[in-house]
């Protein structure tokens, strides 16, 4: 199992065709048996309901059986691509996702590696436990906290900045459109840092401590150890997460954006905060056009999965293919 997936552990004399396949299959029946229940489960719960996707090509009305409504073909997709808002919405989605990829993706990795360097056990555990707390605060509550914290009227940040003499008029953090991208990244970082670190911490714990000792003997300094051992050992996990984050590019965090823009009623932020999901919510769902929402969702999924496959291809070039 160690190393490259593409390598076969044992060479086998292959029989040809379907009977050959069946033969091989039965030989590893115990392995298959471990896998089959899960596969069946996925088929039942994920594939059987998939006929609902047809809604994107139909005009669904209240009370219809999904998949049996009036057929309209690509009408909804046409509406989507010709909507004057589409370009803006697409831009915002991509920019916000890329910014998050740039900042919120590496941060947990760095954080995990730094936590690993803490020597005091108690402090280490405390940091770990406390840092994930924001994950449990719903965006609704977190939003209120953020509004208070960054408020123009004696909010903590503004008061501190003014007291330190850095600015003399309070900054309207949630009132200037251009700041929104930054605010979205910062608030998301705060909320997800601790939680996203968990998977990396757990990956780090499976590293053999002997590796560190061996490296020491070879004269490796602290940073060298952090890079060559800690980082390199969790690289497979990092790649997995990276690929799927790329494959998630068109999904900006709907809850977060809705809350920070007060359900998109903050007009100053609209130009920068409107993403595909919020647009679809406003026009498709609130506008009573469920099929339209469905079509937009399908469009997102198709693009996302193409991005995923592309990212996987790139990763495979360096030997870290995931799929």
């Amino acid at each position, binding site marked *: *199992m*160690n*190393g490259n997936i593409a*390598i*076969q552990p*044992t060479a086998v004399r292959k029989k040809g065709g379907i009977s050959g396949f069946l033969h*091989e299959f039965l030989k*590893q029946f*115990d*392995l*298959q*048996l*471990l*896998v089959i229940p*899960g*596969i069946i*489960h*996925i088929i*039942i719960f*994920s594939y*059987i*309901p*998939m006929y*609902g*996707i047809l*809604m994107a090509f139909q005009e669904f009305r209240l009370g219809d059986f*999904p*998949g049996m409504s009036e057929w309209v073909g690509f009408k909804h997709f046409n509406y989507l691509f010709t909507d004057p808002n589409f370009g803006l919405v697409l831009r915002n989605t991509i920019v916000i996702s890329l910014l998050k990829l740039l900042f919120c993706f590496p941060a947990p990795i760095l954080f995990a590696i730094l936590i690993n*360097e*803490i020597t005091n056990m108690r402090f280490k*555990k405390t940091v*770990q*436990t*406390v*840092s994930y*707390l*924001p994950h*449990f*605060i719903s965006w609704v*509550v977190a939003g*209120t*906290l953020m509004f208070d914290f960054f408020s123009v009227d004696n909010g903590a940040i503004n008061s501190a900045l003014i007291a330190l003499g850095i600015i003399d008029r309070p900054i309207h953090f949630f009132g200037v459109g251009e700041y929104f991208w930054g605010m979205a990244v910062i608030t998301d970082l*705060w909320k997800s*840092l601790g939680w996203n670190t*968990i998977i990396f911490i*757990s*990956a*780090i*714990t*499976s590293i*053999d*401590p002997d590796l560190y*000792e061996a490296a*020491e003997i070879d004269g490796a300094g602290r940073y060298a150890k952090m890079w060559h051992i800690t980082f390199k*050992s969790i690289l497979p996990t990092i790649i997995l997460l990276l690929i*799927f984050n790329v*494959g998630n590019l068109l999904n900006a965090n709907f809850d977060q954006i809705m809350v920070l823009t007060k359900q998109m009623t903050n007009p100053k932020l609209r130009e920068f905060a409107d993403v595909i999901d919020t647009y679809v919510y406003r026009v498709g769902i609130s506008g009573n056009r469920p099929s339209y929402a469905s079509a937009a969702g399908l469009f997102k999924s198709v693009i996302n*999965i193409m991005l*995923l496959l592309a990212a996987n291809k790139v990763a495979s070039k360096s030997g870290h293919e995931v*799929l």
Partner: protein
Amino acid sequence: MKRKKSLGDWIFDIVNTLIMLIIVFVTLYPFINSLAISLNDADDTIRGGITFYPRVFTWRNYELIFQNKLVYGAYIISIGRTIIGIITGLLFTAALAFGMAHSNLKGRRFYTILCIIPMYFGGGLIPYYFLIRALGLMNSFWVYIVPSLVGIWNMLLMRTYFLGIPIALEESARIDGANYFTVFFKIILPVSVPILATIALFIGVGQWNSWFDAYIFITDQSLKPIQSVLLSIISEAQFAQRMAQAASGQAGPIDAGRVGKGMTINVRSLTMATMMVTVLPIVMVYPFLQRYFIKGVMIGSLKG
């Protein structure tokens, strides 16, 4: 063998500690703040300005929660679904991940594609609803467990971990005649404790926080999890205050929407209290899991 700490080491440690302290403060403060607000009188909270401690102390918000008879049953349901969900979910997901980590698995390509597609394409709520109904899971506790037995993302994380286990472990066992079941349960799982603990945490938190499945599929009040009950407590408190005078002055359809969306709010304290009630159990359980994130679990198996 302890190496002497150099100056570089000291500086690194100090800077690291500083960073950690900042992070601890920034993540802990909102929590303390929420705790303070939850212990503060609801009317007074409107005036704003509460930081570390309540200004007008009251247990009222927690009373409102724990006076609700449904809360206790809901706790049992939530604990039940969390524990059962973790055990069953771990089992199914790990088994699948184990198989998928073997490059000699026949049909692996097919299985992989099968797993990825549902992560991106779904049929929506109504077809899912019909499925659940057809399976007889409506209004049953098992609707919390059965549909989530396999988490595809969790499976991928586990698979990545399994791929990192030295193949020597498995091969030596198989040479000794063990079948894959034995390898899985007796060899691989014991050395996978970190990932199992992690995924257990993910599944557990997911189960603990979930309410949407209860909302759509469960009508029996005694089967509702704690989140559903807390949500209804909040909306009841909001509503009871709302209806008093606003309704009778309705001017017509235009204003009708105002009665609902975003009108009072005296319930901020209550909302914080429900958040505490939800999060505190998790915070109390997590340290218990933390000890599985200790290094060196695999060493024994390699050397032994």
